[in-house]
């Protein structure tokens, strides 16, 4: 089924001192980039492109770059858990239960489980990639506009229902997120929309700007209300590391997250985001304690964090086997390969077996390195929460300001962030959850594009969403999901007055 000799050769290559060193550098840089807001993995890889050109072997260059990419996935959860600032879209869901855990003094457990889950799922993704990369890539091609639309509809529904206590409030926020996502260039015609004559609004708003405003600045404003200069912690840190009970509870969540992430991550586009959402939904559904979700359920961290890491591994499949980069970071790696004279695509495994297997093998090694790197860091990060908030708040503020500015070097983005911060504060006062807003903002453009593309293909016939097997099945799940929730809500309503009487 797969090329054992190839993998063996890959490990020999990856274990050479030079490649090990660059793999380590990539992982360290990736973790740092993931933890710091702003500068993302794609931008970091871009900065390192000139250096990589000077490297003798393309394998070494790609080992470094992929290390940054999946390393950032490890780091991305840190700020979500500690500060409720999602470093990337795939970590928005982690904010929900991760931050609650941190507030209860269990930041260490959350961080530890995220790191271990990332390792487990990253490895699941790699094994999947080793064994069945080419046929899976073919299957991903079957996803056309209709399928994407149905998948994003389902994703958005999940986001609305799961990331919020009240479906109505969740829906309100999701719609607001869709509106924010439609500012700027129309995804199909390139016409400018909703710019109100402001030149800076002609380009679309940035995810980082929104996330830092809504979550980061919003949280600081909320904290200003409490007169006590307390830390984020309301209790003392009990265990810095996850206990055996934690691991037992989250073990299957990691595996499930890994499998979901692996399959959904193959899809170009919002693969990682959707997989984290799906994983959260699945965990809430199968859990014996669904009521704990939103209050600091460890599975709510383990599942999605595993899913987004597996998705990071599997997003290499379409890149290396089809020559189709699915996200900004793999697009950079695509460019690097091209400049080294290697065309990613169906011939890569045959013509450049050393590159394919060398990179795959280095990812196995990198995952171990990241686990070893990150577990001791868990203790350090958890201690960070002991710092009184009076010191933390200004620090977070400075970090978010620098982070947002660094994305596009734009002062306008800083203003957007501050406005979003005030909005985030008000929304939280009124008990509106911000997760659905941010997720809708990310998924909205994909959703709109695929909807309009599908309708162009069918000349306006909505049947295209229901007649095609994959799309029809996804739509069916979405409809059942809505009906089930409506039914459950009615049942609850009927029972409530009865109990009151």
């Amino acid at each position, binding site marked *: 089924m797969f090329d054992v000799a190839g993998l063996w050769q890959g490990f020999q290559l990856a274990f050479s001192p030079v490649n090990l060193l660059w793999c380590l550098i990539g992982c360290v840089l990736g973790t740092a980039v993931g933890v710091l807001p702003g500068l993302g993995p794609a931008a970091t890889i871009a900065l390192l492109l000139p250096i990589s*050109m000077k490297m003798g072997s393309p394998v070494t260059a790609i080992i470094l770059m992929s290390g940054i990419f999946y390393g950032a996935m490890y780091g991305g959860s840190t700020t979500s858990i500690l500060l409720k600032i999602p470093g990337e879209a795939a970590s928005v869901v982690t904010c929900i239960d991760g931050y609650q855990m941190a507030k209860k003094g269990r930041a260490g457990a959350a961080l530890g489980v995220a790191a271990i889950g990332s390792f487990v799922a990253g490895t699941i993704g790699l094994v999947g990639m080793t064994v069945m990369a080419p046929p899976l890539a073919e299957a991903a091609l079957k996803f056309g*506009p209709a399928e994407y639309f149905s998948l994003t509809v389902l994703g958005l529904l999940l986001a609305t229902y799961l990331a919020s206590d009240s479906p109505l409030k969740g829906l309100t926020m999701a719609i607001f997120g869709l509106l924010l996502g439609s500012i700027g260039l129309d*995804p199909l015609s390139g016409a400018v929309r909703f710019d109100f004559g402001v030149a800076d609004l002609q380009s679309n708003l940035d995810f980082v700007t929104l996330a830092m405003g809504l979550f980061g600045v919003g949280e600081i404003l909320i904290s200003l209300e409490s007169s006590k200069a307390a830390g984020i912690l309301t209790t003392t840190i009990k265990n810095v590391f996850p206990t055996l009970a934690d691991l037992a509870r989250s073990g299957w969540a990691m595996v499930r997250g890994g499998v979901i992430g692996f399959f959904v991550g193959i899809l170009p586009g919002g693969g990682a985001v959707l997989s984290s959402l799906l994983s959260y939904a699945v965990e809430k559904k199968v859990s014996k304690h669904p009521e704990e979700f939103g209050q600091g359920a460890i599975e709510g961290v383990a599942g999605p964090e595993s899913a987004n890491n597996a998705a990071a591994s599997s997003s290499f499949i379409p890149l290396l086997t089809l020559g189709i980069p699915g996200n900004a970071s793999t697009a950079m790696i695509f460019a690097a390969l091209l400049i080294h004279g290697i*065309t990613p*695509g169906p011939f890569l495994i045959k013509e450049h077996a050393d590159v394919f297997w060398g990179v795959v093998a280095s990812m196995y090694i990198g995952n171990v390195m990241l686990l070893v790197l990150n577990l001791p860091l868990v203790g350090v990060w958890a201690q960070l929460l002991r710092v009184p908030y009076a010191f933390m708040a200004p620090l977070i503020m400075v970090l978010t300001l620098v982070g947002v500015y660094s994305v596009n070097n734009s002062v306008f983005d800083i203003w957007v962030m501050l406005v979003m911060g005030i909005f985030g504060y008000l929304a939280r006062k009124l008990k509106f959850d911000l997760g659905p807003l941010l997720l809708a903002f990310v998924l909205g453009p994909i959703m709109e*594009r695929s909807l309009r593309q599908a309708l*162009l293909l069918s*000349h306006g016939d909505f049947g295209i969403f229901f007649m095609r097997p994959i799309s029809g099945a996804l739509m069916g799940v979405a409809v059942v999901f809505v009906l089930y929730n409506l039914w459950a809500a009615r049942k609850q309503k009927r029972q409530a007055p009865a109990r009151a009487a």
Partner: protein
Amino acid sequence: MLRRIWTVLATVSTVLVAATTAVAAYPDKPIQLIVPYGAGGSTDVLARAFAQVAPKYVPQPVVVVNKTGGGGIPGRVDVARSKPDGYTVLFGWGSGEDLVVPHQRPLPYDLFKDFETVCRVSVHSIVLAVPAASPYKTLADLVKAGKSKDYLTASVSTKGASVDITFLLFGKAAGINVTTVPGSGGADAITKLVGGHVDFGGGHPSEVLPHIKAGRLRGLAVALEERDPSVPDIPTFRELGFDVVTAGSVKGIAVPKGTPKEVVAYLETKCKEVAADAEFQKIMKDIGQPVMYQGADEYSVWFKKAYDQYGGLYKSLGIETK
């Protein structure tokens, strides 16, 4: 009064000194190549290949900076408003945003008054392709199918861009209905095409060539006057009897208007040297982009012609303009 004279003198001398040193020492700091598109796209890859070879000829580093977003416009605004000293250089001059978009909507700069053309590096022609599993073996098959169906679908990178216009033009020339399905860029369009979600599609050789080599796509026609050297086996539309010729997407270099003549001439010479470099040509061959160098004068004329051609196509195709 004396003071005023003194100020004037001081100003004049500073300007003079600044001007002479700027010219004499150029380049004495890194040159930024502004790519107004995302990293990893065809223009970016080309710019990075250029920047990699440039140090052989230029004493200062040549750095690629991606100014993304806004459909490539903000990056151009940045260059147009930057100091005309030759350190901020636009890479991608002649792309759809320059030849096509101005016919669609007003832009925050004047194409012919705010930029100074330096040279042309490459032309990305437009290749029409079908999935390998498609029943259409030739362009004639495709046209025949188009006549018997209500419409054919075609995936294109973005609406109103060169690929879109070329396929609409093809539909008109062949007398068939073509519904173009725009996406979020070249990669998106090619993915849909390879997945078989449309009847036909296409893009630049660098985008379709890997898939043609892999036997996933079949190239049927190229929309240039003569065959594209990067895909010499694919006939032109003209050879096949359809008058479909467009300039494609052109990758040239420009600087802000007002850049000293010596600096422009210097850049032009260096570009010519890079374009003729064996290593550069090898990279370009690998990435499926032809080296098609033209100097400032020649390219300026060619640019205006291509610009007018697209303007004419917009009118004749009746594409909505805003």
